[in-house]
C-alpha cells in the first residue's frame, strides 16, 4: 500500500489572528503552527493502514521552509518520508496542481488529506486532485478500511450516513472519527530528522485567486439581561439585533 498524505501548515486554532499590509496578509509573527486538524486525522489513519497492511506513507506539504517543523511532526507520527513543494500555497487550484504533479509520477494507491484546511476552509483540493488525475475523490470520509484493493468507507450525508466501496486508487478528504489523532512518541520524534525530506520546485505558478482584504469576525458583545416577563423585547432583539429569527 503506497499512501500519500497531504498536510497543511496552519495556525493553531487557539492563536490570536491579526493581519498586516493593509489587511491583505496574515501576520505570522508569534503564531504557533500545526498540522491541519483534519489532515492529522488522515495521517493517523494512513499510519494505521500501513501498520496493518504494510507499505509506505509519504507526507506532502506545499509551503516554504518555515513549514518544515510541521512536516517533521508528520514524520515523527509515522510517515516514512516527506516531500515539500517549495512554494507559498496561494490557493486551492495551485496546491491541487502541485499534488497532482507529484502523484502522476508515483502511482499512489491512496491520496489522503483533510476534508478542508482549518485556515481558509475551502474544502476543494481533494476534488480538484481527483479531477486532475482522473480518479475518484470522496469526502468527508469518516471510516476507512482496505480489503483486497477495495476501500470500504462511510461518510456523512444529509440526514444520515452513507456506506460505500470503491476500487483504488482514490483521493480522500477525511475527518474524525476516521482515526484518533496520534501523539508522536519519543522514538518517533528523535528519529524524525533522520527520515528523508525532499524539497522540489513547484510545477508552475498558476493561481486563480488574489485576496483583496481580510477582516476578523465581530467581537463578542456584552450579555444583555432581559426581564423574564418581557418577551416582546427578547423577540425584538433576536430579530433586529442578533438577526437570528
Amino acid at each position: 500500500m503506497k499512501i500519500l498524505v497531504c498536510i497543511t501548515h496552519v495556525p493553531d486554532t487557539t492563536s490570536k489572528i491579526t493581519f498586516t499590509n493593509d489587511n491583505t496578509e496574515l501576520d505570522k509573527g508569534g503564531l504557533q503552527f500545526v498540522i491541519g486538524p483534519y489532515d492529522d486525522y488522515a495521517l493517523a489513519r494512513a499510519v494505521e493502514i500501513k501498520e496493518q497492511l504494510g507499505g509506505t506513507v509519504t507526507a506532502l506539504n506545499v509551503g516554504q521552509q518555515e513549514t518544515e517543523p510541521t512536516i517533521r511532526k508528520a514524520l515523527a507520527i509515522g510517515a516514512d518520508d516527506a516531500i515539500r513543494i517549495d512554494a507559498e500555497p496561494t490557493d486551492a487550484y495551485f496546491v491541487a496542481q502541485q499534488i497532482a504533479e507529484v502523484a502522476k509520477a508515483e502511482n499512489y494507491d491512496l491520496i489522503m488529506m483533510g476534508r478542508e484546511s482549518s485556515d481558509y476552509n475551502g474544502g476543494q483540493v481533494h476534488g480538484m486532485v481527483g479531477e486532475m488525475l482522473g480518479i475518484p475523490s470522496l469526502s468527508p470520509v469518516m471510516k476507512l478500511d482496505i480489503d483486497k484493493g477495495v476501500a470500504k468507507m462511510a461518510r456523512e450525508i444529509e440526514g444520515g450516513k452513507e456506506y460505500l466501496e470503491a476500487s483504488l486508487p482514490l483521493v480522500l478528504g477525511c475527518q474524525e472519527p476516521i482515526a484518533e489523532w496520534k501523539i508522536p512518541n519519543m522514538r518517533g520524534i528523535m528519529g524524525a530528522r533522520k527520515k528523508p525530506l525532499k524539497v522540489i520546485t513547484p510545477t508552475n505558478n498558476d493561481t486563480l485567486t488574489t485576496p483583496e482584504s481580510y477582516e476578523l469576525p465581530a467581537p463578542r458583545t456584552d450579555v444583555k439581561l432581559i426581564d423574564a416577563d418581557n418577551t416582546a423585547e427578547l423577540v425584538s432583539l433576536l430579530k433586529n439585533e442578533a438577526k437570528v429569527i
Partner: protein
Amino acid sequence: MAKKYISIENLKFLLNEVFNIEEVLESPYYAETDNEAVNMILDAAVDISDRHLFPFYTEIDRADHTFEDGKVTIHPEIIKYIKAMGEAGFIGGSFSFEHGGQQLPQMVTAASGAIMSAANNGVVMFTGLTAGSAHLIASFGSKELKEKYTGKMLSGEWQGTMALTEPQAGSSLSDIVSSATPTDQGHYKLKGQKIFISSGDYEGTENVVHLMLARIDGAPLGTKGISLFVVPKLREDENGNLIDNDVTTAGVYHKMGQKSTPAVHYIAGDNDNCHGWLVGEPNKGLSYMFQMMNEARLGVGLMGAAIASAAYYASLEYANERPQGRKISEQSAKDKPQTFIINHADVKRMLLFQKSVVEGGLSLIFECSRYADLEMTTEDETAKKRYKGLLDLLTPVAKTFPAEYGIKSVSEGMQCLGGFGYTTDFPLEQHYRDIRITSIYEGTTGIQSLDLLARKIMGTGGKSLMLLAEEVKKVTDEASTYDDLKKYVTALQEKLQDLQKVTQQLGGMAMQGKMELALADATLYMEFFSLIVIGWQWLKQATVAKKAMVTGNPEGEKLKFYESKIHTMRYFFSYELPKTLGLMTRLMDKDDTLTVEVEKELIV
C-alpha cells in the same frame, strides 16, 4: 472551566532565550536531540495534557479513589493516561539510551513536566514516581534487577513507588525499623510497614514495585544502617508467573487534595513470605534514595509552580470577564456599566503577584535543571564541581519557594474570584487543596530550611554562597548596560550584601556553639534567601527581555510579552523583595527567648 493552564510561550522563552538550551544540546551526550525535537516534545506534552489530563482534572477529584475488600480503585482515565505515557516513551525520556530512554536534558523534561503538572498535577504523580524509582534501579541495581524491572516500568505496565515513611519515622528516617533478613537464595525477607506511599496500590496496574528502605539484620543504628530494596507486590516464581509477594494494602489515607493519587499504607511480610532484592550495596540505601529525592524535590517545586500557573490563568480569565463595580475615579457615575475586575488596582496586584511567583519559580527550576545538565555533561572537573555546588545549594530553594509562595499565589487567585472562588463551580478551590501538599512532600519546609542553612551554607563554610554571588554578578553586570535596569541592579546588590550579613551573623552563632539558636529560624532564613534568589531570576529574565526589545524590534504580541516580563520584574522588586527587611530584622536579633528557650508550658 478555564481554557489555559500554562504559557508555552513562557516555557520556550526560558528554554531558548534565558537558559540557552542550544548550549546544553551541544554536548555529544545530547547529540540525538535538536531544537526541533524539543519543540515536538513540548507539543506532545500539550497533546497528552489536552487529551488525558486537563479535561478530567475536576472529574477525577470528585470521584476520589476507593478502598474496598482490600482493593484500591482509581479513576479509569488515569489508567489510560499511564498507558499513553508509556506508549509515547515519556516515562523514561531522560534515561540514557542504555536504560531504554532518550537521553533528554532535564531542562526539557522540566518543561514537559510543567505542562502536564499544570494540566492535572495529581495524575502526573503516577508516572513521575515510576520514573524516579526506575531510575534508582537503573543507576544502582544489578543487571538482573534492571532487566526484570525497568522495561516494564518505563512502558507503564508496572507502577513504581518510593517507600520511605513508617508510622513512627517520617522526617526522621534514621528511626525506621523495617527489617531485611538475608537468605541463601539471593533475596532478603522483608518485614515492616510503610505509610503515605503515593500510588502504592491500585487496580489496573499489573504490578507495583516498591523501592523500600529497610535495615538488614544487625545493621548499624541511624542512617548509616539503611539499605534499599526492590519489593514488588507480585514476584515471579520459577516459571516466570507472577505470584503474591506478601505485600498487603492495609488502607488508604483520605486526603485534602490530590485525590487522584492514593496514599497507601502497606504491610510487608505479615506471613513471613515477602521477598526483596538489595539495590546496590548494603547500608547505602539512603544515599541512593537521595538521588531520587533531589530529583523529586525539584519535581515538587515544579508541581507547585505548575499548580499556581493553572490557578493564575483561571483567575486571569475570570478577571477579564467578570464586571463588578466601578473604578474609584468613576464611583459617582452609576449610570456607567460596571467595569471588569481586572481594571481594579488591587486585582491587578493579585494577578501580578501570581505571575511573579509562577514565572519566577519556573525560572529557578529551569536554572537548577540547567546546572544538572551541565554537571552531567561537562568534562571539566572544576566546572562540574561548580555546577554541583550551585545545584545542591539551590535545590531546597527551588522546592520551597514555589511550594510556599505557590500556596499564597493560589490563595490570591481564589481571592480574585471572590465568593465564587470558594465554590466548586470554579477550579481554584481544588488548586488550593492540591498545592497545599507541596510544602510537605519530599521534606517539609522546615527540613528544607535546615538543609539550606546547616548543610548547604554552613556545611560548605559559605563557599556555596560565593558561587551564588558570582552567578548573580553575571546578571547584574549585563543588566547594568541598560539605564532603566540600573535601579534594580543596585537593589539586588544591596540585598546580596544583606544576605551575607545575615549569614555571617548566624554562622557566628554556630561557631560559638549556639547551633540551636543559629538554626531556630531556618525557615525564616529560607524565605529571606528565596526572595533574593527569585529577585535574581527576575532580573535575569528582564535583562533578556530588554535585550530582545533593543536588538530584535519585536512588535505586537511578542513586544507585549517582553514588556510584561519587565513589568513583572518591577512588581517583584517593589512589592516582594522589600519583605526581606522584616525577615532580616528578626534574623539579626541575637537573643532568642521566644522559641528556643521558651518553656512549652507557655504555649497553651
